[in-house]
Structure formats: C-alpha cells, structure tokens
C-alpha cells in the first residue's frame, strides 16, 4: 500500500513538473497550494508539505541525506525555541509600521525561511504570523530545506556531483560552487539586507585555514563514501547534518587547553593556554 502511495506521489510530482515547464519557484509554490496559504479561496494554514518541493519528498529518494538534514538546525531554522522567542522580540522592536513591512521580516526570514525570497508579501506576512503564534506545524517546508541550496528556480537541481545520474524526477546539474566556502556566505556572513547574526565567513576568509584551502564544508559537511540517491552508484557524499555549536563532538574539537603552574611565595600562579582551533570566533552567532 505504501509503495502504491509512493508511486502515485511520484507520478503526481512528475505530472506537476511536466505541466509546469519553465515555471519559477514562486509559480511552483502557487501551483502546489503553498501560495494559497494566504490566497483567497484556500483554507488558511494548508501545510507546505505535500508540494513537490518539501524535504520529506526529497527524502523518498535521498533518505540518508534527509535523515541527516532532519537532525540538523537547518531543519529547525524557524521552529527552534530560540528563533520562536527571538523573532517576535525583533518585530516588537520595530514598532507597528516596521513590523508590517514584509522586508523587515525578510531580514531574518531571507535566511531562516529562504523559500520566501520567491513569495509575495501576503505569504511573508502569513508565515511571520505563524511564527509569532508558534504554529510550527504550519511552517513545515519553509525551513532551510533541500531546495534552499539545490534549486535555483528552474526545474534543475544543482549539486557537487560531477556526473549526476539521469532520473525521472528531476534534472541535475553539476556546480563546483558547492565545494567553495563562499557558498555558505549566502547566509553565514554580514550583508546589508539581512540581520548580521553570524559572521563566520568573514572570520574564515582571514584565517590560516582559508589560506590552506580548508573550507566550511571540510568541517561541517564531512565527506564519506555512500550513495546520493536510492539505487544510485557509490560516490563521495557529504553529511547534511551540519554539526556546529550545538554538537558536542564539534565543540570538543574546537578548543585545546594547556596548563602550567608554580608556587610563588604565598600564592599559586597558573597559566592556562586556550587555543581556538576553529577558523572563526568561538563563540559565534
């Protein structure tokens, strides 16, 4: 039964793709009902899941990547406790007029809910209201999902795989930019259009690690052997768990302590050496 449902789902996705040649992402949102979250005639709060663009559906063929991503903070970019607390505080600080301007919301949501860059002002306002009301179930699909990095608004999915395999669901295109640290700078740096809550990329650019060619991905997207998609060939693939400051393993690799001590008259003099191994501030963000 599950298999039949899956096949039906894929047929539906294929059909939507087929009838939407050359459509942009915002067109796709509209077509799949996501834009209808705010549109007239569609019941408010229609979940974004169920569109061909949700991470859950990508997980049908990319289960390992999906599981890793699902454990990451990218998957909780608009539903984490911290964001649900901080975003309304930010809106309150703007006053009534600033709060109503969708561009003010986009200063945060441009990175935390990147699909909204392709959405209209009404949809941005509705997502804003869902966040303020902590209606997290209605936010499914708006987080930093697969399409945020792999979909450029056309029907082609980009990735760092040099020889992507043909498949009936989407076209694939190799892009070397995925291996460059600058790819992460879309959000992990200061930009005039966004809230400068993290500047790890600027730090990294000045670091010894950058001169040696060690990118963000080298630490935060570890490479290993595996399959990128179900029934696909063995390849070099990369973790999509994006471990960082909330990962004990990463924290324990970030800093090394050294101790020296000696008695001097009536006191004990201790010298502690704290060595930051990370090519960015610790803590950051």
């Amino acid at each position, binding site marked *: 039964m599950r298999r039949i449902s899956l096949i039906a789902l894929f047929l539906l996705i294929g059909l939507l793709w087929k009838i939407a040649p050359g459509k942009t992402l915002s067109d796709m949102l509209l077509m799949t009902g996501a834009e209808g979250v705010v549109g007239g005639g569609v019941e408010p709060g229609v979940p974004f899941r169920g569109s061909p663009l949700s991470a859950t559906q990508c997980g049908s063929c990319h289960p390992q990547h999906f599981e890793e991503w699902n454990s990451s903070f990218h998957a909780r970019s608009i539903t984490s406790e*911290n964001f649900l607390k*901080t975003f309304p*505080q*930010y809106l309150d*600080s703007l006053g009534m007029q600033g709060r109503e301007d969708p561009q003010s919301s986009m*200063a*945060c949501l441009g990175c935390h809910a990147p699909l909204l860059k392709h959405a209209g002002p009404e949809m941005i306002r509705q997502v804003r209201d869902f966040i303020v009301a902590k209606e997290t179930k209605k936010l499914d699909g708006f987080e930093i999902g697969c399409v945020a990095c792999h979909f450029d608004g056309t029907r082609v999915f980009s990735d760092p795989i040099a020889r992507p395999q043909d498949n009936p669901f989407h076209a694939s295109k190799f892009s070397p930019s995925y291996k460059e640290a600058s790819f992460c700078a879309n959000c992990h740096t200061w930009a005039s259009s966004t*809230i*400068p*809550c993290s*500047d790890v990329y600027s*730090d*990294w650019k*000045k*670091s*010894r*690690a950058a001169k040696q060619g060690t990118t963000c991905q080298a630490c935060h997207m570890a490479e290993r052997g595996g399959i990128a998609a179900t029934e696909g060939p063995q390849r070099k693939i990369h973790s999509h768990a994006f471990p960082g*400051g*909330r990962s*004990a393993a990463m*924290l*324990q690799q*970030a*800093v*090394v*302590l*050294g*101790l*020296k*001590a000696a*008695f001097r008259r*009536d*006191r*004990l*003099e*201790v*010298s*502690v*050496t*704290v*060595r*930051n*191994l*990370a*090519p*960015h*501030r*610790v*803590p*950051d*963000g």
Partner: protein
Amino acid sequence: MTVTDETGWEFETIKRVYANFGLDKNGETTGVAWKIVKQSPSSTALRAEEIRVEKLNFLVEPRDGKQFTIRAKMRYHYAPAPQDGSGREADATKMAETVLTLPGKRPS
C-alpha cells in the same frame, strides 16, 4: 578553573566568560543579534585561531596540601543563566578539560 587538595577540598574557583558582543548602530555594546552592526572591541569571544593565555593567581601555599590538583574546564552555554536568583547555570556542553597535579608540603 579549580584548585583542590588531595582530599578534594576546593580552595577556589576562578571563572572567565568568553562571550560574543556586538555594537549597535549607535556604537553601544549589545548582545542582541538584530542590533549588531559590528563586533564590539569588548567582545571576549576567542578570535579565529587565537591562542589566549590566562594568568590566574590562587591564594594557596605549598603547606596547604600534600598534593594539589588544578583543573581547567571549558563549557559552552547555549543561553545566559536564568535570572531567577537561583544561581543555576544554563544548559552547557563540555568543550575541553585538562588537569595538572603539583606536590604540596603539608606534613602528615
């Protein structure tokens, strides 16, 4: 950083806070992310690849113990401590720890 004797008696604990501060558009230090326009010079976060040396003094003499244990621990707090007067610390994860022992001169 904590110094104890051979019985586990704790003489003193000294803390250093490494925190990331920013400046708002008026040049005032703020910890609020959306107000930060540039890093504050008073930020105590470790800079990229920085090696920081902390010199700490404890009022402990050799005769105070037979053996001293000096323990340095670094922990990552995800949020500030609760402001409820309880003195509780916020959830934290251990980042690094190192221990050094020194002989003392306390007679048996």
